[in-house]
């Protein structure tokens, strides 16, 4: 059910944004628009189906881990 909702949202986004881009022949915009939309739709569907996706916050925490430990030691 949620997947259908997400697909409808994506369809609405395409209906709003794609026609003007096609009319003006902005190929670059169209390419980036499509890849972002594809990524967003895939991410949402994966979330709705309960697929395990790594949390970006964990990644940022991991990058800064050495520094935050350093600060704890100093403070």
């Amino acid at each position: 059910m949620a997947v259908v909702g997400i697909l409808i949202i994506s369809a609405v986004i395409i209906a709003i944004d794609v026609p003007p881009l096609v009319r003006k022949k902005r190929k670059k915009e169209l390419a980036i628009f499509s890849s972002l939309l594809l990524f967003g739709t895939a991410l949402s569907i994966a979330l709705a189906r309960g697929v395990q996706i790594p949390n970006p916050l964990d990644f940022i925490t991991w990058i800064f881990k050495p520094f935050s430990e350093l600060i704890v030691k100093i403070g």
Partner: protein
Amino acid sequence: MINEKINVHQFLVLVTLFTIGTTILVVPSGLAAAAKQDAWIVSIVGTGIGFIVIGIYHALVRSYPEMTIIQMNEKLFGKWIGKIVSLIFISLPFIYTSILMIYNGSFLTSHIMPDTPLPVLTMLMMVIVAMGVRLGIETIARSGEIFLVFFFILFAFLVIFVSPNIEFENIQPVFESKINTIFGASINLVVTSTINSVILLMIFPLVTRYKDAIKSFYIGNFIGGAVIIVITLLSILVLGADSTARQAYPSFILARRINVGNFVQRTEGVIAVMWFITIYFKMVLYFFASVLGVSQIFNLKHYRPLTLPMALIVGALSILMFEDVVKQQNFDVKASILYSITVGLFIPLLLLLVHAIRKRKNENKDDPQLIQKRE
């Protein structure tokens, strides 16, 4: 590139709303946990340090007033390194839009609308954020002017009606905490309200008369800081340091204490509305900066087509990142401050350094004496 313009006064409004942002609801608790009854001193120190940070941005925009930070990156670091630095820069407003969405969602589900599922709230908020960005910065700024008035009316209401509950014993003894504690605790405030405003450097070139615009950067920070100082002071004076530190949203509880003649009661909705106004504008500005940033990284003619797909990603990311409150706190305490400092302080300082080196090189090249010597 984009031919939208906002005036100096509108920029001031945006800076003020951005500085107040989430701090109004969340910050008093953290400050009180660190510095107890001296939390209000911390907020004064934090606002003061904020001016130094803006000084760095001032130096940067003085040299390149007509460029966004993305364009500065490409000019100073070269095309490819510049694009990589820009991507790191843009990740901050993008991730923070999702995090603010989480803040908003967890506040709404815990205090206002407990029965509504989180994805629905996220989606509704994302729709109005995306709408604001699609309508453009001019519309955002003009609505900001209207909502700032609302904000200050509600703020005055809060201050006037809560002041009968003040107990001065709550802030005594004054200056009990050490100077280290005060400065350490103030970093949190400086990061959330001032260092994150580095993303306003994306909007800066859109302001007419940029020379006056930098002045509104300072003034906006001052007004926002004053609001935060007053809210922190009131939380401590009315609730006391311990109970302020224990609450997740102390100013919300503060508004609950209002009771005028057993008639004006349960006014916490007031603080919720204030929070909606400021968090909405903070979110819109973050999102606008990330959308505009992506379009500039790829040299697109217009940012507008990217708004909706990116809004979809932000919505999904915020639901993905909202696992539990503990993880959220962990990120806030350990990583987000360093992340903000890297992007908001380290990148601008690096830009200034490269700018200084390039300038010196160019001067040497043009210096007639040196040319003579070479000959």
